[in-house]
């Protein structure tokens, strides 16, 4: 199976042929995969070199010129490094762009903190008007990328090498119903959540889109005040959104995800998943402790 990043390059390259408004802006990362498309469309596949502030500003400037810009690099260098450019050259200018990241929270598990970005979604939460997709499978990534390219506003698509075995619907979906609480599984964590909750009487909601937060589905399916969020980025990122969704009633919310304390260990993404308590048996323990507290 291809990775989400490979699917991104393949699909985007094809769409460059079909949609004259699309322009891809790169900073060396993944540019090999766009070499063919770059030969066919030299003006719309733009590799700036290692210039990430320019990456975001170029996206803003392309939008001002009437194009649909797609800017890409690792999440840490796309969102965190040039955050003022996102704040001003996209939000303050009020232009649209698609930001597509690779690397996520611990894909580059042996790479260390500099290449890991669990804080990206939380950072974007400080700005209005961002649609944020966290696909759980390359097929979902393709659907959501195609949607993003057709849209007009600001969209962040967070790709990862972490993936579920099978694609799920690329929208908020009920995976199972239960009575003792609701578990919200985001993107690539659907498989561990399903394994962890197979013997638990809980509702499991899946979502590959976290902004806007699936508030309506959460409210419609709520059977108990307990909500457990399982997010592949900073733990608790969607606690405020959940509280706002359920502001009309008492709730208890547990936010599971990546710890903010730096994990100065290497190894594999699986090692990191376990270290952050996001593997099935750790999730099972956290969820049952919360429901029986």
């Amino acid at each position, binding site marked *: 199976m291809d990775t989400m990043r490979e699917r991104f390059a393949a699909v985007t390259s094809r769409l460059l042929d079909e949609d004259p408004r699309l322009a891809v802006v790169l900073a060396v990362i993944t540019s090999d995969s766009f070499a063919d498309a770059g030969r066919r469309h030299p003006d719309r596949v733009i590799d700036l070199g290692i210039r990430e502030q320019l990456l975001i*500003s170029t996206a803003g*400037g*392309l939008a001002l010129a009437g*194009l649909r810009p797609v800017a890409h690099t690792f999440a840490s260098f796309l969102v965190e490094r040039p955050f003022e450019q996102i704040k001003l050259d996209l939000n303050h*200018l*009020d232009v649209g762009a698609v930001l597509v990241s690779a690397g996520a929270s611990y894909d580059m598990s042996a790479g260390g903190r500099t290449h890991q970005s669990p804080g990206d979604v939380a950072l974007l939460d400080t700005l209005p008007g961002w649609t944020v997709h966290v696909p759980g499978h390359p097929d979902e990534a393709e659907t959501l990328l195609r949607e993003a390219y057709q849209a007009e506003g600001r969209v962040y698509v967070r790709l990862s090498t972490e993936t579920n075995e099978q694609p799920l619907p690329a929208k908020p979906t009920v995976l199972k119903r239960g009575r003792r609480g609701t578990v919200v599984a985001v993107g690539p964590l659907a498989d561990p959540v399903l394994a962890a909750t197979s013997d638990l009487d809980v509702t499991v909601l899946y979502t590959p889109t976290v902004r806007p937060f699936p508030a309506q589905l959460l409210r419609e399916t709520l059977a108990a005040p307990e909500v457990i969020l399982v997010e592949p980025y900073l733990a608790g990122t969607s606690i405020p959104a959940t509280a706002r969704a359920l502001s009309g009633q008492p709730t208890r919310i547990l936010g599971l995800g990546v710890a903010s304390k730096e994990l100065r260990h290497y190894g594999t993404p699986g090692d990191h998943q376990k270290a952050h308590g996001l593997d099935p048996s750790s999730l099972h323990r956290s969820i049952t402790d919360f429901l029986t507290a």
Partner: protein
Amino acid sequence: MKDIVLEGPAGSGKAHGEYGYDDLRALMSRQTGDEKHDRAATSTLDALWVLYDKVLRVSPATAEDDERDRFYLSKGHGPMAYYAVLAAKGFFPADVLDGFGGFDSILGRHPDRTLVPGVEISSGSLGHGLPLAVGTALGLRARRLPSRVWVLVGDGELDEGSNHEAITYAGRARLDNLHVVVIDNASAMHGWPGGIERRFAFEGWSTARVNGRDHAALTEAFTMAHPEQPHVVVAEV
């Protein structure tokens, strides 16, 4: 898109298109409260006037046209000269200048493209306009539009590293629809030993250095040919 209704006392000023260079000081002085940036504002006045009066193919009637030239004010502080020039050219009524900085005014101490007719980018944090202009220049080229992009930056503003990502890339990409005017009022904290234009020239730009108050010299420097290269005019004031 800007969708504002501008109200002001009728008959209180000249009609659009009647203002000339000699009216600009009066138009500037109607904007009070940002006196700390008077020097910054005045430093840009002549370059702005020559651009809007002689060089830029854009007017209130063509302000949304794909084929218009784009002017990006990157030096966003002290925008009083910019607002005066825009009012003089009829992008909005001169009466609007009186409300500068007020709660409901469209004119803030740094310009907002979503509020002010004729303003192409919002600025205020230094070092954003030139990188944005690189993106626009690339976009216009991709769409095969004949439009040119102009950016006004300050010599102090060039301290910001983000400018240099743009300068180095634009030279390599031969973005010949990109033009920069640097207002050099020697305000950079540690100066630019050897001259600003040398850095641009080294990166493959066409360059000129002129007296930033001499309209004829500015016009000539702004309109000189520069095939296959982006172009910078350093205007000394």
